[in-house]
């Protein structure tokens, strides 16, 4: 049983295209996240949702739009892709948004390559 799953695992696309990454968790968690990991392995939080409500929206271009149709799903849509968007995107979930229940469970990642 996969706890946090992402699709697709690899995504290769041209500049200017629009793409989506899907994430699902079957842990019953209330909080979900999107992270971007660059080529130097730095991990940067992009968004966080708690019970379908956006609670963290870091300085991310407007071209990135998260959507949470329900607690178990958090999708990431990216418009007008740029070369600098190439990275590995991780989805994660946690039981709660803060405190001792903030242990995060990560998906396997989506490697996005923009040509």
């Amino acid at each position, binding site marked *: 049983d996969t706890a*946090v799953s992402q699709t697709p695992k690899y995504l290769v696309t041209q500049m200017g295209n629009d793409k989506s990454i899907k994430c699902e968790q079957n842990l019953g968690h209330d*909080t979900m*996240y999107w992270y971007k990991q660059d080529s130097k*392995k*730095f*991990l940067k*939080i992009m968004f*966080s949702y*708690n019970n379908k409500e956006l*609670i*963290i929206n870091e300085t991310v271009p407007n071209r990135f739009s998260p959507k949470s149709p329900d607690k178990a799903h958090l999708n990431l849509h990216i418009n007008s892709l740029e070369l600098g968007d190439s990275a590995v995107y*991780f989805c*994660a979930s946690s039981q709660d*948004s*803060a*405190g*001792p229940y*903030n*242990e*995060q*469970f*990560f*998906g*396997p*990642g989506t490697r996005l390559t923009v040509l």
Partner: protein
Amino acid sequence: AQSVTQLDSQVPVFEEAPVELRCNYSSSVSVYLFWYVQYPNQGLQLLLKYLSGSTLVKGINGFEAEFNKSQTSFHLRKPSVHISDTAEYFCAVTHGTNAGKSTFGDGTTLTVKP
């Protein structure tokens, strides 16, 4: 505001040697601390966590960490490493009121050589 500093970006060691990966944090309130490991081409997974109680925390794969409040540190140790421990290690901090935002360090690349 909270922050995390991993003092070593790369740590090369020989197999069966001991290792320590250093993590310092800053926060004005009580914190909860985590170490995650990322094996090549995989997502992060939890190694261990400090929530409260004993300051020495044991995790998976023989790793342990010690919470030191006075030095605001949470260093990760293993007495004898294996080739399979080669990975990226991340220290993270969260606290009770900063909803939704764990702060991750920049990571330490541990390379175990034969």
